[in-house]
């Protein structure tokens, strides 16, 4: 499906979604509460069939965090980007690890680097950093004079 066709189809599924113009692929913002049901639909719908979650990450915009999910379909070969805005003080979102197993590791990485809490995650622990590490290193306000990361 082309971006325009995807846009029409996805608006039918979630009328509350807002679209972002520009970029190679269709970008859409949805509410954190809708994420699990929305992604389940786009995975199981035979016309969309987004069965492959190829990138899961987070961006710190200083006022809020944005979760960024890149989906692709191995059958139809179309891509979309789903984004969810999160509160910066207490970021919480449902896990997708029961729909895409790859999310389990990627969410653990986002958890330790951004401090996003994934609800119902099977094993939400730090993956790369040590267990006693303090702070969320990929946030923009993170300062660590001893283990300097900034160049």
């Amino acid at each position, binding site marked *: 499906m082309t971006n325009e066709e995807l846009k029409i189809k996805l608006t039918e599924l979630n009328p509350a979604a807002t679209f972002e113009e520009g*970029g190679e692929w269709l970008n859409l913002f949805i509410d954190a509460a809708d994420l699990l049901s929305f992604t389940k639909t786009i995975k199981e719908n035979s016309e969309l069939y987004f069965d492959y979650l*190829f990138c899961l990450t987070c961006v710190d915009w200083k006022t809020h965090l944005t979760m960024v999910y*890149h989906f692709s379909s191995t059958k139809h070969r179309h891509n979309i980007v789903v984004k969810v805005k999160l509160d910066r003080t207490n970021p919480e979102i449902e896990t997708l690890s029961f729909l895409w197993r790859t999310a389990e590791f990627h969410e653990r990485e986002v958890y330790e680097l951004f401090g996003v809490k994934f609800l119902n995650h099977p094993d939400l622990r730090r993956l790369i950093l040590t267990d006693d590490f303090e702070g969320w*290193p990929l946030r923009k306000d993170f300062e660590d004079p001893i283990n300097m*990361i900034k160049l």
Partner: protein
Amino acid sequence: MFRQTEIINQPSTIPPSKEEGEYLTINVGPQHPATHGVLHLVITLSGETIINIEPHLGYIHRSIEKMCESLSYRQFIYVTSRMDYLSSHINNHACALVVEKGLQVEVPQRAQYIRVIMDELTRIASHSLWWGAMAMDLGAFTPFFHAFREREAINEIMEETCGARLTMNYMVPGGVMVDLHPNFQQKTKALIQAYYNRLDEWDELVTGNIIFQNRMKGVGMLSAENAISYGCTGPVARGSGVSCDVRKIYPYEIYNQLQFDEILETGCDSLARYNVRLKEIRQSLKIVEQLIDNIPEGEFQAKTKAVLKLPKGEFYQRVETARGELGVYIVSEGGTTPYRIKFRSPGFSNLSALNHMVKGSKIGDLIAAMGTLDLVIPDIDR
């Protein structure tokens, strides 16, 4: 004499305990010859059967993503050679492509040809090293020397042109850094001819070996459905019959003009992944053969500004490395440095499937299954 026989007849292994709570936990790594780097696996065993595997990462974590936030669009490419050091050309390529996509720079034909040749030579070198290491993991030491001898020839070619053997830093936004060495074409042609003969030798030496086949068949099973769910790409997914070659599906540079096949195997086991890689070497040789005599004359680098500024927006580029799909995601605010950069590394996702692949099998099979994932630890940790 009599006493010796008695000792041999004693049972060598303790029978597996059925009761829960009597599991044995062992650590493989962070320093272990079979993990090929500082990977730490905590393995729970019942007798010799694997109950659970938990990877502990981060021993070589350098926070490349955070570092890149304070590096310019020319500088950050150099860091990426240190991620997957066996595919450093391809990592550089991905970064150069994403910057070119943002700047909308047209890359000269000559540079595109050189880039693809370098990518494919890298893939051959990487798969060769993997082949040697794989056989070594299973106890055959000779193939390791064979593989290193062949890889050395590629490294020499690289050294002449790029001035480096491992961290190449050869591809820059707009093209490649320097033109090809005068010896390049002649040496590469000789290499291709030698390689075809070597590959037949390798098949005789290892592939047809019945002991080797028995150790690989039916080990580390990964169904196509699970391969997609775990985000596996590259030879790991193609060994399960999942078509995922970025060069075919989302072609970049001149890949859509080239004749080559995407290798798919349906065995879903370690032997299938092994076969995919060996066949891919032949395909890469075929690609280099098509290009080496037809490199167009002209510029090797497009003219770009001294200070690069990407427009505000988001850019994503994926390429096929020797291990699978590498994605570079850049969020730009219009400045000289990226606002946020994410590397979707193939090894990270491939490793996440390991627990699923070997659960319930014997610990000896772990090495045969893990070897075919072709893990490069700096790529996983970043």
